[in-house]
């Protein structure tokens, strides 16, 4: 399971302030901590321009520079605005890069798809269109189909596309855990080379014991074929469950990764 570290996001209050105040050290530390905790990608979201940053594209450039100066891990350039994504990509020196994200809306899919094709970037694609998150599996698979058609026409390969099957709170509609799992299965059976990625924590919104729900859902999603998760890599319990999920889905030969984590004292019950 690929872990995309979510901490460098302007919508987290302390990170938003650090970006506004150009608190470089805070952001460098947060990057190093996620790297050390086992993140495979570092997500970078500079927000929409607050405080000292009148221009959000410049905030993204500044932030990309800081993050890449302290980690060798690839970045996920996180914005829904094509010009901000472009600014982040321009500044980033690495070969391997992810763009987070687009959806089925042609106005965003077209320019961002071109950027991804040109840069050979991985691209997170939310399986929704203009009307919001579809409540059913079929509608989400329809959105995936139109995204796939559009992106392959722009020259992207199936394996560059990370579909986000989307997660709605189970507290509001008790079928939604199942809808996400079935959407993952549907995507993996239709497009075997394409990848899937989710942000898990929305599943437990409005419930008690959220961490417990999130960890169980991660394991179920791994079983349905999930390839990557956007989460907090500093959450040692969640990271333990990721190692378990890798092992139980046959992705940890001779259980080496799991036992190594045990020897390092990284596993938390």
């Amino acid at each position, binding site marked *: 399971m690929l872990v995309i570290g979510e901490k460098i996001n302007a919508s987290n209050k302390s990170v938003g302030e650090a970006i506004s105040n150009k608190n470089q050290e805070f952001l460098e530390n947060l990057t190093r901590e996620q790297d050390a905790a086992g993140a495979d990608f570092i997500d970078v979201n500079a927000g929409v321009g607050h405080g000292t940053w009148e221009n959000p594209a410049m905030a993204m450039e500044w932030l990309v520079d800081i993050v890449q100066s302290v980690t060798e891990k690839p970045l996920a350039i996180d914005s829904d605005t094509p010009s901000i994504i472009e600014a982040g990509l321009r500044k980033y020196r690495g070969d391997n890069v992810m763009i987070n994200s687009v959806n089925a809306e042609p106005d965003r899919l077209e320019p961002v798809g071109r950027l991804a094709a040109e840069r050979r970037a991985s691209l997170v694609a939310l399986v929704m269109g203009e*009307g919001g998150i579809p409540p059913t599996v079929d509608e989400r698979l329809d959105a995936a189909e139109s995204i796939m058609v559009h992106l392959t026409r722009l020259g992207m390969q199936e394996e560059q596309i990370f579909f986000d099957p989307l997660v709605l709170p189970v*507290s509001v509609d008790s079928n939604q855990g199942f809808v996400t799992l079935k959407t993952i299965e549907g995507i993996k059976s239709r497009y075997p080379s394409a990848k899937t990625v989710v942000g898990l924590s929305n599943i437990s919104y409005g*419930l008690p014991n959220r961490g417990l729900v999130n960890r169980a859902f991660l394991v179920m999603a791994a079983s349905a074929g999930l390839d990557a998760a956007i989460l907090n890599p500093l959450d040692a319990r969640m990271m333990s469950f990721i190692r378990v999920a890798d092992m139980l889905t046959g992705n940890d030969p001779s259980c080496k990764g799991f036992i190594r984590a045990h020897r390092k004292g990284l596993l938390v019950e």
Partner: protein
Amino acid sequence: MGEDIIAAMKENVIQGRKTEEDEGIDEELTGPGVLELTKEALDKGISPQVIITEGLTAGMQVVGEKFSTKEYFIPDMLASAEAVGAAMDVLKPHLEASNVETKGKFAIATVQGDIHDIGKNIVSILLKGAGYEVHDLGIDVPTEKIVEFVREEKPQYLGLSALLTTTMVVMGNVIKALEESGLRDKVKVLIGGAAVSDEYASEIGADAYCVDGFDAVKVLDAYQ
């Protein structure tokens, strides 16, 4: 006898049991749910007003208290609100026949550019349960469409929802557009959503900020 039915109704609202088939918070509880009790009460000649105020609303008030102290969670609150909503549907023709007015017309929309609907839907369910006539205009609703609705349908209250820091500014645009159309003093504007606050409400000239659906009920009831 009538009092027993009303007391049972209030208790079943608190338990979140719409029908006799439903499990309550207390899993031992059996017998008729809110829907059956509402029909029984009407058959016994109990007035719709008594059913609403002493049964349904009294029950929802307890649910609101339990939600605010974190004893209840969103699924508990939604089960109770659905039970009340179903009872209100049964009561509607009786209310119309006896010329009882609703507490007022409330329109709600997630503003243009924002597609989040969970918060908006919860507010709609709770206000419907509290006796308001709710018109849900949907998500990503253009400002002109909201203004047109206020002009044509004359709701006394307008709820605006936005979750994102990028879309909360649109709520201010809606208020400006209402001013320019000479409609601002015709409607109370309430705002809600993760990114907004009391300060933001006064900054853009909204009448109130509501932290959640129960708060919206409280704020609207205070206007009565």
